[in-house]
């Protein structure tokens, strides 16, 4: 080794010494930023609690009662379920614009297979769930294998699925009474149980099976995302797909599984949709796309992928529900709800950008 001065040899001996310790900035703001970085659902949780308290103070018992609060849950159940599906896709840095269409088509298939072809109800439901899963897989295949941008893919399948829905159903609605009489299982998610109601079954907290399903779904997905390898892979793919591929993640398989699962969850939402509105209507559920994306964004999940938690999306959906009901009880114009939701979306994205700075 000619020509090099031995400048490196001085560091050869000392092995035990501590290198590169972290001198963490302990100011309150920094700590808060760090807490948000590790627990991204914190912001929507705080916003949710504050808004419940605020509307509770403004409106009083009419709002702050078990009945009203569980009514909010019932009103957000569909958005909550679909937002769970949307969360999975957005975590992979994708987007699913076909969620609303898959939801409606699945509900139409469940209804028509019973009333048009006379299939046994459970079989018709299975068919609806199957179609949802297949349509989701199709999205996944186009994104992961054909390498098309998720936005374009689902923009296309959204139109295709929605058109199929109208063509197939011939725009026909299956009425609630018929379903109740002949296929009550289709309205399964409308079943309720009450806690603390009086003898006439009034007041108290009312939970529909749809609400229970939404909560269980979020719990199961939260577990899968945090505690299983599949969940870690979903985050890794959303974070940096090339790095994930090189470090041994099956990127293609993970993406397809996410879109397929999203489709399946939307099909469940389609079943819950029948419970919610009673009938099977091909024109329902149109607003689920934008509502689910709104819930996800307010829930602190980054549209750039890889960051956020599914519990946040549930909080996001609940925040929208609290604002809708609260403002209605206050007698405000419904447009104020949209106004505030718009503000919340922008604040949420700003907070996301701020949290990312912790890395810099």
């Amino acid at each position, binding site marked *: 080794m000619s020509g090099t001065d031995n400048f490196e040899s001085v*560091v050869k001996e000392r092995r035990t010494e501590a290198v590169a*310790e*972290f001198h963490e900035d302990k100011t309150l703001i920094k700590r808060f930023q760090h807490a948000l970085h590790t627990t991204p659902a914190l912001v929507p949780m705080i916003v949710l609690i504050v808004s419940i308290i605020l509307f509770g103070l403004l409106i009083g018992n009419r709002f702050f009662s078990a009945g009203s609060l569980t009514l909010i849950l019932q009103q957000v159940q569909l958005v909550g379920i679909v937002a769970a599906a949307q969360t999975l896709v957005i975590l992979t840095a994708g987007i699913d614009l076909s969620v609303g269409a898959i939801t409606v088509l699945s509900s139409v298939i469940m209804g028509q297979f019973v009333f048009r072809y006379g299939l046994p109800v459970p079989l018709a439901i299975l068919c609806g769930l199957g179609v949802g899963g297949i349509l989701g897989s199709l999205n996944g295949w186009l994104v992961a294998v054909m390498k098309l941008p998720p936005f374009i893919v689902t923009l296309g399948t959204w139109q295709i699925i929605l058109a199929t829905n109208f063509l197939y159903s011939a725009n026909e609605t299956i009425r609630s009474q018929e379903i109740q009489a002949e296929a009550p299982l289709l309205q399964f998610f409308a079943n309720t149980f009450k806690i603390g109601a009086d003898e006439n079954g009034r007041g108290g907290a009312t939970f529909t099976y749809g609400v229970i399903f939404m909560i269980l779904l979020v719990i199961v997905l939260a577990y899968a995302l945090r505690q299983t390898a599949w969940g*870690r892979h979903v985050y890794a793919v959303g*974070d940096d797909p090339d790095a994930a591929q*090189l*470090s041994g993640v099956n990127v293609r398989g993970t993406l397809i599984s996410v879109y397929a699962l999203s489709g399946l969850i939307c099909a469940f939402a389609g079943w819950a949709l029948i419970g919610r509105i009673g009938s099977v209507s091909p024109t329902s559920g149109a607003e689920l796309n934008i509502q689910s994306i709104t819930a996800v964004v307010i829930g602190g999940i980054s549209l750039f992928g890889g960051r956020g938690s599914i519990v946040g999306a549930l909080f996001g959906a609940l925040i929208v529900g609290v604002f809708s009901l609260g403002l209605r009880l206050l007698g405000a114009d419904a447009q104020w709800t949209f106004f505030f939701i718009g503000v919340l979306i922008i604040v949420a994205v700003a907070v996301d950008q701020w949290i990312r700075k912790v*890395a810099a």
Partner: protein
Amino acid sequence: MAVEPILKGRGLVKRYGKVVALDNCDFDLYPGEILAVIGDNGAGKSTLIKAISGAVVPDEGEIFLEGRKVQFTKPTEARAAGIETVYQTLAMSPALSIADNMFMGRELRKPGVLGSVFRQLDRPRMEKFAREKLTELGLMTIQNINQAVETLSGGQRQGVAVARAAAFGSKVIILDEPTAALGVKESRRVLELILDVKSRGIPIILISHNMPHVFEVADRIHVHRLGRRLCVIRPQNHTMSDAVAYMTGARVPDTEFETA
């Protein structure tokens, strides 16, 4: 040479559109040696090791591991065969923790039903292992093995990537510029680690632009030029200026191979 190469590449070709990144390239790695690969920017060094590690599939050519022909189409396949790689880009997920990153794609699950039915990760076991490996490397005192990789400095990230490769590599370890972002002290640690791995009998491919480091640790130096192997030299027979002259094309080597 009487010994068979543990890893052998013959006639490797990789084209990116009109760019020929690998042009009929040969490659040999012998058991227990440290082989340095040097060459200009864009010479095709990274492409060569990616072809070996399954990250890119060569258009033509064959690769033999311990005399048997292998065709890796995914990095996981090369990993399963015992070839571990630190890529130039490090290949880490910034938002995930150090432990998550170390075990990406080979996560440990809890024993019993929790693992087999509920697929639950064995976080404590993975964290303990990750902490041990980082301490072994002595590269850093990580306060929290669960901190996100993006909160680490560039050098610390590189340290984690090297630790990951050293921990899991059983047949061959490939390092693509592992000290590029490291400070003097940290580079030293990585060089020590490389010698350490070698003493365990595992051969290493080291890509580096740092000639003093290359000449210090390498047993042989593969000079890469314009997508192919120009020559293989032994550091004791050449100066650093020779090596630089060969790799930049300023001088043509006398022979392709040197005997010790």
